């Protein structure tokens, strides 16, 4: 048996691109309903319409997560220590 057989298809180099395509297809599918439904504006009386705009949840989810990852990365430069830091 060749070495290839032992590698699960998730780990094969040629499938990496396919996995990205699948993910993007799922994202496109999730966006599709935006053309048909209108979201509720929870704070219309405060003049906030942002949450009812098409695609709000998609870009908000992406952006806030990207910000959190970057903030964590930056804080990591200050806060990270070797994991035996506290061992005497």
């Amino acid at each position, binding site marked *: 048996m060749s070495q290839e057989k032992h*590698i*699960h298809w*998730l*780990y094969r180099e040629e499938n990496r691109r396919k996995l990205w395509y699948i*993910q993007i297809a*799922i*994202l496109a599918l*999730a*966006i599709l*309903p935006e053309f048909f*439904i209108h*979201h*509720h504006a*929870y*704070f219309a*009386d*405060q003049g*906030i319409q942002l*949450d009812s705009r098409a*695609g*709000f*949840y*998609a*870009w*908000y*989810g*992406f*952006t*806030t*997560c*990207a910000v*959190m*990852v*970057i*903030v*964590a*990365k930056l*804080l*990591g430069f*200050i*806060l*990270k*220590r*070797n*994991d035996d*830091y*506290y*061992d005497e």
Partner: protein
Amino acid sequence: MIITMSSLIIPPGFILILGGLLLPLLSTRLKPAAALLFPLLTLMMVWLITPDHSLSVNFLDYELALLHYTPEGRIFATVFCLAAGIGALFAFKHASTLELSAAFVYAGSAVGVTFSGDLLSLFIFWEIMAIGSTLVIWANSRANPLALGASMRYLLVHLLGGVILMIGITAHIGATGSTDIVAMKADSLGTWLILIGFLVNAGAPPLSSWIADAYPEASPSGTVFLSAFTTKTAVFALLMCFPGETVLIYVGLYMVFYGIIYALLENDMRRILAYSIVNQVGFMLVAIGIGTELALNGAAAHAFAHIIYKGLLLMSAGSVLLMTGKRKCTDLGGLFQSMPNTAINGIIGALAISAVPLTSGFVTKSLETSAAADAGLSVVWFLLVAASAGVFLHAGIKFPWFVFFQKDSGLRPPDPPWNMRLAMNIMSGLCIVIGVVPALIYGILPYALDYEPYTLDHVVTQLQLLLFAGFAFFVLLSLMKRTLTISLDFDWFYRKLIPGLLAKIQIAYAAIMPPLTRFAKQFGKRRFDHLFEVHGPQGIFARTWPSASMVLWVAVLLAASMILYYLKL
């Protein structure tokens, strides 16, 4: 001592506490059966109790109400029994008798808190919990040398919290004469200290680090028990005593983002999940701070769901630890190939914590965000929605990705023994059943609830939020490369700075150290003798106010033992 009680009803927590104490005396064959029976009996007792039942014990000048029904208490007690029972199923083959026994005493006293009718009973159970949970961590010190130190740091934090709570209760009684558990506002010294005492156990800043410091040092099953009780009894206590206290919104929001950021930085799989506890409890505190009926229902429902899916996640991580002996993401990966059952259960737990539709998280956490919207708290709402996306990021994807997928570590351990798989499958089942039939949990909430989680708008927006959060994870994966590191937290002050300074002083001033310590000891003794003179059994205060002095004594002893331990005198 006067006991009033009716029929065969006893405080449910007592069954678990006595069961825990009985466990070491049982034969090896009886033990597993007993470990499942005690939580089940406790659960039955929880549901037999009605508002008419009561049991009070006279203690000094006060009446301790040990059996006091509230709908909030019942929902927390129910999930505590489930966590103890399913946790015992997960634990019984590998856990030491000490761990299991301590876990039952711990769980039983958590149930005790939920049925406490006054602040003094609550405090007593609160302190038994601290001892039980410390022993759960300590029980692992033979297998993990780090557990001993972690258990002692854990105990110190909880004794400190206990002392603050005790002083708060004393001051509150002094000011109002009441020991009742009622909705309060933090507007006096007593109520502020009570609030702070509760918050220490909830994992609030600045002491949040105790959760991630202590829990991951326990055994695979020990961490499962620990995740269920301490922080959630604190949520219960805050729910009962401080609904609508605005401070909790700010504290909760801080915890929500603290949990996400630290979990993103973390490499130890169970520490990721420990930070995630702080994040989840943060959501609950925000809801309690909002304080509307919808919000309080949300906090209770979320606590219920959280205990189950967090237990499930930690069972999954515990199984990996047990089968591989490894706990760091840098050493793990690719385990889905040989541990499919553990991976699937871990993923279900991850989906539930992320509030994916058809899971328990979706039908419970959405009550809290909706409550923020209904209350017109726009900033809070936007932050909670961002945090919901962040939950998917740090727990929903990060945990299963780095443990079961990412690079192939080459490890091929089998799934854990049948009892562990069964426990995980039951937990997964509960996550899904609650998600599909939310009426199960909506029906036992403290307030009537008219809420439909499955609207097209809600399902679509939630899926969009999470899927794009997931997309951000994979796009930015290179920024999240695991490193062999820990992250500094507030505990740096008492683990590094102060001991370091003390050591420096000791070396630099070796000559004056002995007289200095002698002076400190003598000073302490003089203060102590003075207290004894004034407040002791023959003291001026004791003669007129025996109960008040008793209360003070408890506080003094706790404080003294803490300081003595810390200075290792």
